[in-house]
């Protein structure tokens, strides 16, 4: 059992595409039984591909010889800074749906940006956890935004059916915005009615649709737990739910945040650095209602690592709501910038 790390990018890496890395996960010349496969993406150029992750079983054609886990991540020097275009990214222009499907247990996807604003009409769902994929799923620190001219049921991150209250599926510290096309039924993050347990912590969702049938967080299963999420500026409700999921310390621009620590009916413009189209920056800003109003989740589901890579748990922070843990700048290390009115 070993961790086998391969690099992915177009500048002299091991693989030039994510799809090629995934397609080699069952290669016996690389992997052995119970290995952990890690694909490390680099910001050499934008990827443009739809990928289904289900490889790593029956390595070399031998039944019962399987990977222990798969992780698709980004090299430290290629991580985004919380805004589009700043790190390793998939700018998808094709028409496959979904654009990224996680179709096997024990899979982590983190630190990638998915920009689908130039995708075809059929690409309605950007990141999907497939049916009955219920164990060891982590989607962390992603930036997911933009859809093409789809025809409805457009979704940023989706958890499909399967499992029960014992699932281990974590969606944490993701930024999801501009999941919005002209039709109704846009959803920022969506857990289906038969999806069983998923845990959604410290995500930030903004600008989901413009119609009353568009929802930022759409939670339809009572086993779901969602805490410390920001959902704002949705066409319909910021949070729509059924089945009595567990919810605490969420923040919305409408009245739909409820439960302990809820921050409801907050002004969107007071929260984020920029909600300007084409230059979005959903870091919270000084004075935000999200600051110090979250609940400490320890290290559950990697919720401790914020969108900048700050470890809230190790730093002893009082947790903010949303993907960003705001730390006011000290003089040291602050970029020089002059402002003159």
């Amino acid at each position: 059992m070993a961790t086998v790390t391969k690099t992915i990018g177009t500048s002299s890496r091991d693989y030039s595409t994510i799809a090629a890395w995934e397609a080699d996960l069952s290669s016996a010349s690389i992997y052995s039984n119970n290995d952990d496969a890690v694909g490390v993406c680099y910001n050499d150029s934008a990827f443009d591909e739809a990928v289904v992750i289900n490889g790593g079983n029956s390595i070399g054609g031998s039944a019962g010889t399987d990977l222990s886990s798969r992780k698709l991540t980004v090299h430290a020097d290629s991580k985004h800074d919380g805004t589009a275009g700043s790190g390793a990214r998939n700018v998808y222009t094709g028409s496959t749906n979904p654009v990224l499907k996680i179709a096997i247990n024990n899979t982590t996807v983190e630190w990638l940006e998915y920009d689908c604003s130039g995708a075809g009409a059929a690409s309605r769902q950007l990141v999907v956890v497939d049916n009955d994929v219920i164990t060891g799923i982590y989607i962390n620190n992603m930036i997911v935004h933009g859809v093409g001219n789809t025809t409805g049921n457009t979704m940023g991150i989706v958890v499909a059916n399967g499992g029960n209250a014992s699932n281990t599926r974590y969606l944490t510290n993701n930024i999801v915005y501009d999941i919005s096309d002209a039709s109704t039924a846009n959803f920022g993050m969506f857990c289906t009615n038969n999806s069983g347990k998923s845990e959604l912590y410290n995500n930030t969702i903004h600008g989901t649709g413009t119609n009353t049938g568009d929802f930022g967080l759409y939670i339809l299963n009572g086993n779901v737990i969602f805490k410390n999420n920001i959902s704002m500026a949705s066409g319909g409700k910021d949070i729509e739910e059924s089945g009595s999921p567990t919810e605490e310390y969420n923040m919305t621009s409408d009245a739909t945040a409820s439960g302990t620590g809820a921050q409801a009916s907050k002004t969107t413009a007071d929260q984020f650095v920029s909600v300007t189209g084409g230059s979005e920056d959903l870091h919270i800003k000084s004075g935000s209602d999200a600051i110090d109003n979250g609940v400490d989740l320890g290290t559950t589901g990697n919720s401790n690592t914020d969108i900048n890579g700050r470890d809230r748990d190790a730093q002893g922070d009082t947790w903010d709501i949303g993907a960003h843990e705001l730390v006011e700048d000290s003089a040291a290390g602050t970029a020089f910038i002059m402002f003159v009115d």
Partner: protein
Amino acid sequence: MELIVKVKSDGSNPYYQDGDVVQAMSLDYINFVHAEMICHPSNFGFSTNGTRDLGTLLEKFQQATHVYKFQRVGKRVRRTNLITAEEEMIGKTPNENGESIDVYQYLTRRLKNPNHKIFGLSGSELWYGKARTDFEVLLPVAWNHIETESDNLQDNHNNWPFTDLEKRHFVCINTSGRNYDGDSFTRVELSGDTVTTRSMPVLEDSEDDEQPMLAKRKWFVPYWDLSSELGNSVDDLRNSDHMCDCRKPMNEREHIDILTYDKVAEGLL
């Protein structure tokens, strides 16, 4: 169009099958990827105030590949749509679309990123946003800048940067279409749906949102029957220690219909 093709099956459907097209790359996308690497921020320096210099190849490439230009004007930002030339001033107070920006906090955070793309002088910083994907429009402009301001020629950047590992574990090929003039023809590049469909899965025909995947890929290359066309033996193509690159110059490329087959049309699903 260039293709990377799976060697050996990973199991029965819906896993990869021997010969599946893993990924297809159009010439436009290949040209774009090379342009991005040439114009990567790490290849450019900083001005004395920590921003990037205006008028550089980096800035011209950013302008050619984005929809919006943003320029700070005091505590506000002028957003210019580079396609329509429409301009709008945006500041802390939301506009009618709810858009707002805190310029100080925005720029402070960006400038800490060693790969930032903030240009110009303090007080009038400039940046670009929203990636364009209309390659047919942006590529001629971008490559004109690159060829004018560097030693790189677009014609030298027409091949996908397949890695050594990929050349050993997969079949790397290219192909072409044909334009007929009477009995003669010229080989032409393939684009659009012809490229994107080559790496699509086969989904169950269903009205539901969740369409089960019947096959991971719809198209395959029966490389085991194409030794002469690919210029490599099947044994070499299947040998993961042997590096094969089956790509050919344009005037020698096989037609796409000789190399790629639709599993559904062939009755294999």
